[in-house]
């Protein structure tokens, strides 16, 4: 198969855009599928099958080919990559919950996250399940179900790639709650203990604060300016990554 980029691309793009040659379009798609696969791989293992992400990324590729302006003088590679990544990110955003969770439960989970913050401040301690239920106007069973369903969100990308992406989109959870704002990178970096090198800086710092400094979830949440539930998800996700990384899953002990 011909490598993407260069004069070959331009010729195929001209044939497609100026003459409507669908064969040329198909050849471009095939040329760029390895790029799609490579980018999709970066987002795999987050609750979605690689092949599904390749399919989603391919849509971004096709859109890039169809919208490409041959007069702009940029390489298709340069234009296609952010389109492919953008499509994959949109997929995660739209399908953020890794298992099908009813919308009502998703909304309750978001509401509980906000109530948890408010009650923790008001009561000066972590609220109980009955207190959360009372504040939310739902049953204790519904609170527990919503909290449990919230764990289904843990497989979504939380921070890698972190912050605004190439297309300016925020990661799903960073856009989820009003209370969550940008984590400010501190110079006080967490120690790079064995097994922690698979974590990104924010995960490492949170793990360090929780398991070395002994801060509670709510203290960590207050310190870095994200919600307590987000801290909980990040801790679980980080520990999963460490477990996956360390051989058969058993941490060095």
């Amino acid at each position: 198969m011909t490598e993407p980029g260069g004069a070959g691309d331009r010729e195929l793009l001209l044939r497609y855009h100026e003459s409507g040659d669908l064969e040329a379009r198909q050849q471009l798609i095939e040329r760029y599928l390895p790029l799609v696969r490579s980018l999709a791989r970066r987002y795999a293992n987050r609750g979605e099958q690689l092949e599904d992400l390749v399919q989603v990324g391919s849509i971004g590729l096709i859109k890039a080919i169809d919208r490409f302006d041959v007069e702009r003088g940029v390489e298709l590679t340069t234009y296609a990559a952010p389109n492919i990544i953008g499509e994959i990110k949109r997929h995660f955003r739209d399908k953020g919950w890794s298992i099908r969770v009813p919308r009502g439960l998703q909304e309750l989970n978001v509401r509980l996250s906000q109530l948890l913050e408010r009650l923790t401040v008001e009561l000066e301690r972590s609220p109980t399940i009955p207190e959360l239920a009372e504040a939310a106007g739902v049953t204790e069973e519904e609170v527990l179900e919503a909290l449990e369903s919230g764990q289904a969100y843990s497989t979504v990308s939380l921070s890698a790639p972190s912050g605004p992406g190439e297309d300016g989109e925020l990661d799903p959870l960073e856009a989820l709650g009003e209370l969550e704002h940008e984590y400010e990178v501190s110079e006080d970096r967490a120690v790079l203990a064995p097994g922690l090198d698979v974590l990104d800086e924010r995960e490492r710092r949170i793990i360090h604060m929780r398991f070395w400094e002994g801060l509670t979830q709510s203290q960590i949440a207050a310190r870095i300016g994200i919600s307590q539930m987000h801290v909980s998800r990040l801790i679980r996700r980080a520990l999963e990554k460490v477990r996956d990384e360390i051989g058969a899953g058993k941490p060095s002990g």
Partner: protein
Amino acid sequence: MGGLAARLELSYETLEDLQLALESVLEQDGYVRGDRVTVRLLVGDESVVLEVGPLDPAQLPADLGHPVAEGISLARLLSTLVDEVSLEERDGAHLLRLEKRASLARPETREPA
């Protein structure tokens, strides 16, 4: 565990810590001996105790309860998440005993036993 936590009026953070402690033990290969595991939740006046077993003591880290390993070991996780960690042998089976001191959030609202 969530249902019991609600009934006992454990705080959200206490419930989170107990769940994460339990997950840390159960989600790693090799700790559980056999294909069945029993989890018991014992409720005291000022603490709750999780008993998990039977476990394979040879697979468990030696520094349980006093983490010395530099990395994110099971010992470090458990020593943060609960207050007391011990391994007990009962009827030939090894049980991990995780005790979490948890003053109930609203003891005045609990009905007398």
